[in-house]
């Protein structure tokens, strides 16, 4: 154990010979494919979270062979490497090591193959999530994982973080939709895990790699499942007087044996903020709403819609609305997906977490969050994937107020500790990254972490790939930034 810690600390994070490395990178990827001027590098120092760190260089490979050569160079020179898609992550997964190398995948953004009969696509990591669904829409197919940032985030990033989204309640997270990957290991070797078959004999290395947050290898091609679009979709809005009533409804729907495709909650404060921003038609005087989507065979959806309405009304819903057409449906979802952008109007910064609780604990955790907000004198909004117990408390703050930020962190930790206490997790879809690594030891024992670190070291022993992520380190340095710094995110409404 002790040895492992020491080993990860001993990694050289700074390129000793950066100009030489940059020259070599230009030879590998092309003169125009490397950035090393400070003003350019500043654009690569943050993600959508609250930390930043400036890299020493950014390289834009155009093919797998170049990624392999870059990795070989980085390993030889002991330069820390992080792969980066659109940097929409919230946990710091794509934040570079100071002075290290960013491999940006914006030039590896091709859909390599669409295999209709097998319902698979093979894509490069830089393909934007929503673009894949749009590309195959005329075939009646789509890619199911739908993070709120799906207009911007890349499938490579989805793979690294094992991203979720509202519809993962029915369809599962990214790992449930990936059957094969091409990976460049820290040695530079190019290997393949899995393929187009749903499963194969041998260890499920594909499943292991997805969600390893860029610490095992760099994915250069991904084989994903494409789902057939459902025949019928029904979108309902349950309006409740209180958060408590809405929270109790979530477990009542689950207990009634209904699995919606999505089941999202917005509390009263968030409703106000969102409505003022994008006029989705949300009721302004409600305590909370549930956005419930059902999909499948026409007959089944109609029956479930009736059942869901009954459950909501039994749980004291004031009313249950149903989107009567695609336009109304889009409007209801617009409010949900634009919620984070709406916050930009009311707060300089916000901090969000994605703790998970067993679904039956949602009423309790919502009460706890209310108490935490009072205790620390903070505004906390809630907009989250209620159906699978995945919280997103939004804590507002002003980063110029250091004392307030300390309260934000304490409040956030108290919420996550509650999640851990009731058998939940510290992250449902954002990943551990940098921000939650020190909480890992609350969830996992030293031996649990020792086993995981042993696996990381089996592939990434020198710690060149995405060091200082996932696993707790004795010391943490934190720099703070506001969420508004990433222009792409502001536009796309994460």
């Amino acid at each position, binding site marked *: 154990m002790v040895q492992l810690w020491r080993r990860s600390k001993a990694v050289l994070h700074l390129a000793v010979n950066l100009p030489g490395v940059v020259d070599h990178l230009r030879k590998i990827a092309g003169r125009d494919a490397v950035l090393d001027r400070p003003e350019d590098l500043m654009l690569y120092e943050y993600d959508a979270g609250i930390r930043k760190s400036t890299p020493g260089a950014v390289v834009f490979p155009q093919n797998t062979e170049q990624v392999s050569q870059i990795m070989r160079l980085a390993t030889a020179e002991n330069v820390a490497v992080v792969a980066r898609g659109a940097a929409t992550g919230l946990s710091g997964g794509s934040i570079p090591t100071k002075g290290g190398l960013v491999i940006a995948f914006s030039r590896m953004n091709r859909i390599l193959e669409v295999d209709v*009969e*097998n*319902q*698979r696509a093979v894509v490069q990591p830089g393909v934007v999530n929503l673009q894949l669904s749009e590309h195959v829409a005329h075939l009646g197919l789509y890619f199911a994982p739908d993070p709120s940032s799906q207009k911007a985030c890349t499938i490579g990033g989805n793979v690294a*973080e*094992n991203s979720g989204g509202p519809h*993962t309640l029915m369809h599962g*997270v990214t*790992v*449930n939709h990936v059957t094969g990957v091409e990976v460049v290991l820290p040695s530079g070797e190019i*290997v*393949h895990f*899995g*393929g187009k078959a*749903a*499963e*194969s*004999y*041998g*260890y*499920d*290395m*594909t*499943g*292991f790699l997805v*969600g390893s947050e860029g610490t095992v290898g760099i994915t250069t091609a991904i084989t994903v499942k494409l789902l057939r679009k459902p*025949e019928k979709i029904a979108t309902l809005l349950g309006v409740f007087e209180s958060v408590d009533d809405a929270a109790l409804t979530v477990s009542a729907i*689950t*207990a009634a*044996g209904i*699995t919606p495709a999505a089941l999202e909650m917005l509390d009263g404060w968030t409703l106000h903020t969102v409505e003022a921003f994008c006029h989705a038609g949300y009721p302004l005087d409600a305590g909370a709403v549930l956005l419930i989507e059902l999909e*499948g*065979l*026409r*007959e*089944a959806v109609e*029956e479930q819609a009736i059942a869901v309405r009954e459950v909501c009304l039994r749980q004291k819903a004031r009313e249950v609305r149903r989107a009567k057409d695609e336009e109304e449906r889009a409007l209801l979802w617009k409010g949900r997906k634009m919620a984070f952008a709406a916050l930009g109007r009311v707060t300089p910064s916000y901090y969000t977490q994605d703790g*998970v609780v*067993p679904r*039956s604990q949602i009423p309790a955790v919502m009460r706890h969050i209310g108490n935490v907000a009072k205790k620390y004198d903070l505004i906390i909004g809630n907009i989250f*994937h209620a159906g*699978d*117990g995945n919280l997103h408390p939004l804590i507002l703050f002003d980063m110029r107020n250091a004392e307030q930020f300390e309260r934000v962190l304490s409040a956030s930790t108290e919420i996550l500790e509650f999640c851990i206490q009731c*058998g*939940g*997790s510290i*992250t449902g879809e*954002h990943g551990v990254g940098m921000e939650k690594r020190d909480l890992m030891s609350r*969830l996992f*024992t030293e*031996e649990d*972490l020792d*086993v*995981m670190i042993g*696996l*990381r*070291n*089996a*592939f990434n022993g020198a710690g060149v790939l995405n060091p200082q992520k*996932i696993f707790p380190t004795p010391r943490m340095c934190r720099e703070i930034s506001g969420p508004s710094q990433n222009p792409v995110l502001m536009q796309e409404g994460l």
Partner: protein
Amino acid sequence: MSTATTTPRFAPVFRAICGAKYVMEDPAELRAWNVLGVAPAIAVTPASVDEVANILRFANEHGLSVVPAGGFTQQQVGNLPQQVDVLLFTTRLTAVEHYDAGDLTVGIGAGCTVAQLSAMVAENGLFFAGDPAQPERCTIGGLLATGLYGPLRHGYGGLRDYCLGVRFVTGDGRKAKGGGRVVKNVAGYDMMKLFIGSQGTLGIVTSASFKLFPAPRQTRTFVAVFSSAAEALEFRNRVLRSPLDPVCLELVSPQAHELLVPGSPAGAWWSICLRAAGSDAVLARYRTELGSAVVREMEGANEQGFWRTLEDFSPIAAERHPRSLSISMTLPVSDVQPVLSQVSAVAESNRFSFAAIGRVGIAHLLVSLWPGPDAEDSLVNFVDTVSGLRNRLLRDVSMAVLHCPSETRHHISAWGPMPTDLESMRAVKMALDPKDILNSGRFLF
């Protein structure tokens, strides 16, 4: 590594760990628990995770080979072990760790059988989607280690989709876990994926958490018959392209039908058996969409019995034809047709008969082959049949030989080529079982 004959001198250590009652030392008794004919030197049945860890730590220190065991339903699968120093039963690890009917999740000891778990959750109108062969014997630990599944894999996904967490002891005796008990969780590495289908070579799973599903209120099975596999698969394609969302979609070859329903007329029909869940209105829709190809519907006990028998296809085939090959293949959906043609051609050239079933919507085939009346029942013929299939494997197809006549074992590898990089798998193995004490020689290494 010590020899199996010297292992009994470690018996006092195991007695101290588990209690004398739970250490089996009688050679005659141990022979009954042989692994592919290799009798274990000693068998232990620990009662707790700590006892499992103590046993593995000791075995690791002394280089003893350990074979984990549950219900012994798949223990004869895999390559021949050189020796079995310690057979470790997980059957006393049956505690319910958590059961939250309202959350649709359960955490259960590895030694609990699938049937026990299913019965427990059925009381709350829920069900566990794992449907391996012989559920009364198959344990949760064995299910995870072998990655087994049955027809429900089509509608509910595989273990990799609904296993939420695992607790395990590594080959070198570290107690650890991955995942948790909530339905969505990305904290830390996904250890569940590594353990599912690892054939007991990375560690011993002591308990696991699963997502449960609401039990459907009613189901119906529609049977459609065709004169060729090609026509049956064309019908499958129609179903896959339709809005229908069946829970099972199974192909049954003519010979398989005869095996599963003894005494049934030896017809030449390939059938597609589609199981649907839902209200009367939903089932009526299925009837309309499926059309005139459907010749029979099954419901109630009749339907239950049919699917239970289908789950047991491999053991039933091996019992009826002890001198047979039992093969399992995972493949892309579009390869089912060419692979079945290959199977047919290889069988014909060796004058073997074959029976096949498979969840053809996700593409997993189970094939049983045995020498036909005019074939020579020889070692060469069995070996030829396997290599005939392996030599023509398409990309992305992986094939395991689950059962073969005992004298052919030395000549037939159970696993064959895999699409996943072998050296990466070796790195995982070395990180979790560095001395290779777990199921040594039986799987990849």
